[in-house]
Structure formats: structure tokens, C-alpha cells
């Protein structure tokens, strides 16, 4: 998240403040990846426009707050606006998902990827050309819960947003996991497995695709809400294609159809990125940050083409591993 913290610290020391910032970013990207996993991993729709819904959520939240005036920081009204903007952001992204999904979900594979890619770009360009949303400049999102001015407030602010971020991630994971483990979830996965067979066995494939796409968009919107409030200002550059690719990379690295994988991959990718950024491994490696994603992708394809977890979950490990005792 450029802009939210000074990237260059002359003498870097590991601190809770730094770690909290990293974990907040991990929670955000894990949420985004989990929501994309519903669309791409479980429902099998290859979407390259997930950052578009992320942007819609962020700007919807920012707009909502600006309309609500400037409630006193930390007041009950401010908390209400904070939570209200979450609902509004998710709904706005869900509506965008529905509007994009209905015409686009007739397309499959590469064609769907191109159409969603175009959507992501359209969102960014529309925002750039809408003065009410800040145009290509920043839209500032007034602080509602804590104003991080002094060092003490920054610390409280980070702790608070870490808690909110983890809560957001947990809600996302539980909702998606519970949906998948139901009759409706099995219908969604059957569309990925064989759409024609699925339809001929009574599954309303189009309806389920739209539902999965819309729900995935809603959670991406929730991620946007979180980012808008955490960073305090949003700009179109925060939602470019690279962000969409980063989300997709986390999903693929973790494993299509594995929520645990999305979380672990977010920890790994964001963790490496942030560690390199600190410069503790030297200035050279700091520049190598640019190569990280490409390198990770190449290693992934060579070592684990199905992602770290494949379609398995962490919970499978302690469910089935018992007969295998560690050999000395």
C-alpha cells in the first residue's frame, strides 16, 4: 500500500508497529484472494477484473463517508457511518458484479478473462474522469474511528485496523466456506467441473454463476471499504491491473479452490515483499522486489503447478494425517 507508510526507514528495526502494518495488508489481500477464489477457484470463471470491484467498494465507501459529513472522530455516529459504509461498499460492488456478470458470464475461459479485464480498466478510467471522486488525484476519506496523528494514535490505529482486518477476513472465509459446503456450493463447483453435465442434471448453471460472481464482487468491495478507511485516501493508481494480477497470483499460488491456500499465499507473498522492502537484506535485494512475483510464478509452475494446497484445506491435514507417524 504505497502512501500509507514511509517506505524508506533509515535504520529499520522490527517492531510491532511494522508487523501490524504487514499483517493488515495480509488480511486485506487474503480477503481479496478468498473472494476471487470463489469466482475462479470454485465456480471456475477466470476473472481478471477483480480489482475493479475492489475499486468500486473503496470509492463507494469514500463517497458514502463524504456524503455523511464529518462526524466527530470516535463518536457513535462515526462508528455508524464506518459500518454503514461497509454495507454500502459491499452492495455497490455486488451491483457492479451483477451488471458485469449478467452479460459477461455467457463467455468462457479466455473470453471472460478479457471481458472482465476490460471492466477493471473501465472502472479505473471512469473514476479518473469523475471530478466528484477526485479524478486522477486522491479522494481523501475522513478518519472516523481514530485519527493517527501522534505515535500513540498510530499504534492504536494499527491495532484497531488489524482487528477489523482479521474480523473481515474471518467473515469472508466463513461465509465462502459454508456456502461451498452446501447444496448450493456443490452446484457452483459442478459448474466448474462440467457445465453441460451440470445443466443437464437440473442445475441452473447461469443463475449459480451469477450468484458466485456477485458474492465474490461483494467481498472484493468489502476489501475496498477496508482499504479506503485504512489508507485515508484513495487514488485510481491503487486499483490498477497490477493489483488485480497480484490478487490472482495469490489465488493461484495458494491453490484454486483452497481458502487456506489463499491465506497462506497472501502471508508468503506479502511477507516476502515487505521484508525485501525494509532493506534489511541489503539495497540490492530491495531492488529485486520487482522480480519477486515473476520468480514466485516460475517456481510455482515448476514445483507445484496446482498451487501450494491444490484444492485441499488446512483442516484436511489433521483430519486424515493420523496414520502417518513421523519416521525418525
Amino acid at each position, binding site marked *: 500500500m504505497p502512501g500509507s507508510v514511509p517506505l524508506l526507514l533509515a535504520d529499520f528495526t522490527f517492531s510491532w508497529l511494522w508487523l501490524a502494518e504487514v499483517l493488515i495488508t495480509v488480511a486485506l489481500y487474503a480477503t481479496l484472494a478468498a473472494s476471487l477464489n470463489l469466482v475462479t477457484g470454485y465456480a471456475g470463471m477466470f476473472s481478471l477484473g477483480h480489482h475493479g470491484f475492489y475499486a468500486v467498494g473503496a470509492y463507494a465507501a469514500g463517497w458514502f463517508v463524504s456524503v455523511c459529513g464529518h462526524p466527530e472522530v470516535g463518536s457513535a455516529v462515526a462508528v455508524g457511518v464506518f459500518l454503514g459504509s461497509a454495507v454500502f461498499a459491499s452492495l455497490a460492488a455486488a451491483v457492479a458484479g451483477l451488471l458485469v456478470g449478467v452479460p459477461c458470464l455467457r463467455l468462457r475461459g479466455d473470453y471472460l478473462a478479457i471481458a472482465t479485464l476490460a471492466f477493471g480498466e473501465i472502472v479505473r478510467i471512469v473514476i479518473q474522469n469523475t471530478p466528484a471522486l477526485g479524478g486522477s488525484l486522491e479522494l481523501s476519506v475522513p478518519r472516523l474511528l481514530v485519527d493517527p496523528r501522534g505515535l500513540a494514535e498510530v499504534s492504536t490505529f494499527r491495532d484497531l485496523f488489524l482487528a477489523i482486518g482479521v474480523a473481515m477476513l474471518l467473515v469472508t472465509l*466463513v*461465509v465462502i466456506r*459454508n*456456502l461451498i*459446503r*452446501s*447444496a*448450493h*456450493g*456443490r*452446484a457452483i*463447483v*459442478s459448474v466448474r*467441473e*462440467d457445465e*453441460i*453435465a*451440470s*445443466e*443437464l*442434471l*437440473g*442445475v*441452473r*448453471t447461469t443463475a449459480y454463476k451469477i*450468484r458466485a460472481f456477485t*458474492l465474490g464482487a461483494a467481498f472484493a468491495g468489502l476489501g475496498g471499504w477496508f482499504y479506503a478507511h485504512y489508507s485515508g485516501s484513495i487514488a485510481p493508481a491503487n486499483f490498477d491491473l497490477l493489483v488485480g494480477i497480484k490478487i490472482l497470483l495469490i489465488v493461484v499460488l495458494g491453490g484454486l*479452490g483452497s481458502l487456506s491456500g489463499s491465506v497462506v499465499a497472501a502471508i508468503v507473498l506479502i511477507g516476502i515483499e515487505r521484508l525485501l522492502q525494509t532493506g534489511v537484506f541489503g539495497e540490492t535485494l530491495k531492488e529485486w522486489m520487482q522480480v519477486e512475483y515473476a520468480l514466485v510464478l516460475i517456481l510455482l509452475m515448476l514445483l507445484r503447478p496446482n498451487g501450494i494446497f491444490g*484444492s485441499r484445506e488446512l483442516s484436511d491435514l489433521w483430519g486424515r494425517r493420523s496414520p502417518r507417524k513421523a519416521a525418525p
Partner: protein
Amino acid sequence: MTGTAAPLLEALELCKDFGGLKAVDGVCLTLATHEIVALIGPNGAGKTTCFNCLTGADRPTSGEIRIGGQSVGGWPAWKVAQAGVGRTFQNIRLFKEMTALDNVRTPCAFQAGYGIVATIFRGPKFRAAEARLAAQARELLDLVGLGGVADAKARELPYGAQRKLEIARALALSPRVLLLDEPAAGMNPAEKADLANLVRRIRDTRDVAVLLIEHDMKFVMGLSDRIYVLDHGVPIAKGTPDQVRRDPRVIEAYLGVDASHGAS
């Protein structure tokens, strides 16, 4: 209708053109409950196209299809399936990465009786419905003899088991009509006999009519109550296995003109 009860499934003058090719040309067929009927013909005779029309996968160019007396013309495939038409596929189309149990449970999604929101909170109604769906699915797996591999992924099952799993999955729709597209393809004689028994058991224990496409004549003749024969999309014969076996047009379609002369 002419006074008698409407047949379970009825196709009237079914035609399907692909460009200039008449894949199905004027097929009429009827099915009644507890009947096993076969649709045979040389390769490319239009049997699978016929199935695709009956299940709503292809829209017939002309003709009418009625299920339980109701016309289903123009219905999407999922609606035809929910109305009680279950099918298997010539090339196995299981949900490969899903378990056998989940394969069989999937067609029941529309009978779940709870919405998407209920999946999040997993209340008593949700749990009761899930228990009911799982019990139904296990019963079907037992019926086809796959009760022991419920938790195996479909792709891990041997070929014969995959064919049976497709049948169980089609039965999960509680179909009134079960369409089997070459169910015995690639099976050895013992597996075929086993399959024939399974099909009879399904007919005897469930209120269903079975329509099957099959190339193995011994299998078809031993199992079917009636047979329809297609050649180049045109119906050329119908009747009991004995009638069809002796029909010179059938022999000609399968073996050529000389053979039919030689045989008569």
C-alpha cells in the same frame, strides 16, 4: 390424447437439422413407466442427437416432446431435468474433482429447500435438509454398488464404477425417465451382465422408464422390452427384440444389402 392416459414421455415427428444435415428426421417414440426401451442404429444414426433433443440440450428443428402429457418445447435443459428426465453421457461426464457422494448430491440442489443465506448460519432446517440429501445420495450409491467409495473422488474410480456413478447421479433427480447413452461401452461381459441386472433393478424398484442407446446387440436384445431402430436419422423399425432382429431393413442398415439378402 385419445382417451388413454398420457404416456410418460412422448416424442412426435422429432426433427433436428444441422445446416443441411438431417441428423434426426421424423422420430416418434413413446415410453411408459417400468419399461426398458432401446434406441439402436449404426454409428451416426442420430441416437445421441435424439437424446440431446429429449433432454433439452439441443432444440429440435420441429416436432414436439411431451413429458407426462406436458409439452416441454423450448424449455432450458435444467428445467427438463427437474421435470424428471435424468441422463448419462456417452463420454463419461462426471464432476471429476468432486467425491462420489457429492456427484450424486449435486442434482438435488433445487430440492434443498434452503436459500444461500441459510448456508451461512447452518441452522436446524439447513442441517436437516443436508442430512436428508446425504441419506438419499448414500441410498443411491448403495443401489449401484458404490456405497463403499462414497468419499473417493470421481476421477479416482475405475471405469466401470464411473459408469455406475453416472447412473446414480441421474437417479438423484428422481427422474420419471432415465436416459442411458451407451451404458455398457467398454465393459467386459461380466460387467455387462451386472449392469443389465442393475438396470432391471432400477426399473422394478422405481417409478421410472428407461431409454437406452447401446451397440452391444446381446445386451440390448436381452434387456429391452421394445426397440426403436434409426438409420441416417430416419426411424426404420420398431417392435420387440424378436421383431426387430428379423426385420430385413435392420439387417440391411447394419450389414449392407447383400447381407440382408443372404440372411432372408
